[in-house]
């Protein structure tokens, strides 16, 4: 028995020597999406707890989830890993419901969106928003603030840097409202605040953003 085992071992090592000279692993995964049949096959294998398929699943999903989550947790990027772990775990747990009507990417991003909403709701609930008397004054347009010399990528970088400088609550409010296109009413309901309080918070967030943006420009 042991002689047989040793023979197999030598054979495995021989094979591995041949394999290790390959410059690329056999299964290269760089794209965000797979053909539908491949996605279904992958889902079945992950559900059967195949470790290799699970690695493929992680490699496939992590990049787009990372990008999505990171842009929404600015400036608290140290929370990205914990939230991503929650998202992938929730994704795996809900895979039995995956029918392939939408791509795996859309499926996982929908879960990520729910998790982000949960996080925003919790953080904004914890925030004490004091409401002053009187109507807020009319706000200036932001168009004049924009630098026409900046290309789209540079402008986006500057937006991200400016968001990172704001207090977390302001950043969350701005991203929830304008990036995720939540209405003020939805934001108020989800975070247990009044619409008026949410409008105040957004007004302050916009004002702070403008100040930081202008400060960086000058």
């Amino acid at each position: 028995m042991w002689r047989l085992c040793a023979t197999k071992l030598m054979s495995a090592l021989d094979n591995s020597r041949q394999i290790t000279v390959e410059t690329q692993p056999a299964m290269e995964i760089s794209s965000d999406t797979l053909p539908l049949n491949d996605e279904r096959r992958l889902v079945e294998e992950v559900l059967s707890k195949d470790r290799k398929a699970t690695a493929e699943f992680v490699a496939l999903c992590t990049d787009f989830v990372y990008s999505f989550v990171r842009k929404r947790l600015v400036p608290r990027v140290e929370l990205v890993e914990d939230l991503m772990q929650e998202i992938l775990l929730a994704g795996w747990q809900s895979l039995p419901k995956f029918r392939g009507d939408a791509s795996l990417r859309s499926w996982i991003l929908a879960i990520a969106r729910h998790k982000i909403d949960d996080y925003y709701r919790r953080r904004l609930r914890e925030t004490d928003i004091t409401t002053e008397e009187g109507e807020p004054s009319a706000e200036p347009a932001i168009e004049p603030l924009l630098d026409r010399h900046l290309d789209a990528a540079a402008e986006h970088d500057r937006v991200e840097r400016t968001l990172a400088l704001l207090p977390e609550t302001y950043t969350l409010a701005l991203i929830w409202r304008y990036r995720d296109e939540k209405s003020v009413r939805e934001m108020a309901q989800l975070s247990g605040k009044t619409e008026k309080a949410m409008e105040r918070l957004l007004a302050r967030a916009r004002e702070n953003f403008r100040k930081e943006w202008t400060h960086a420009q000058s």
Partner: protein
Amino acid sequence: MPSPETERQWQALLADDEESRASAPSSLKARLYSALIRSQQETGPLASLEVSVAGGHGVCVFEKLVQIVPVADEAKTPFFCTTCHARILAEHFDNPPIFWAHCPYVQFKA
């Protein structure tokens, strides 16, 4: 309340930029993979390596050794990567110096 036009401008300024997608660091992928496998193990044994091979996946040289060891199949289901140097390097460094073919942690390297 800002005017609808100002609201539209804010939306345009803060919109998600699909072009500027950052790739996740390979060490993060490695830690997420280990965590997901740990969660899978909590609900019962992983599929055996034979199942992976039958599904068309390759196994690394260490897993090959496990495959040929004359023990019961149940003894071949644990997550052997927990004892592997490749996992430790991959979880702590981006693009670590690991090169084993069919190692999941090598797969995460950029």
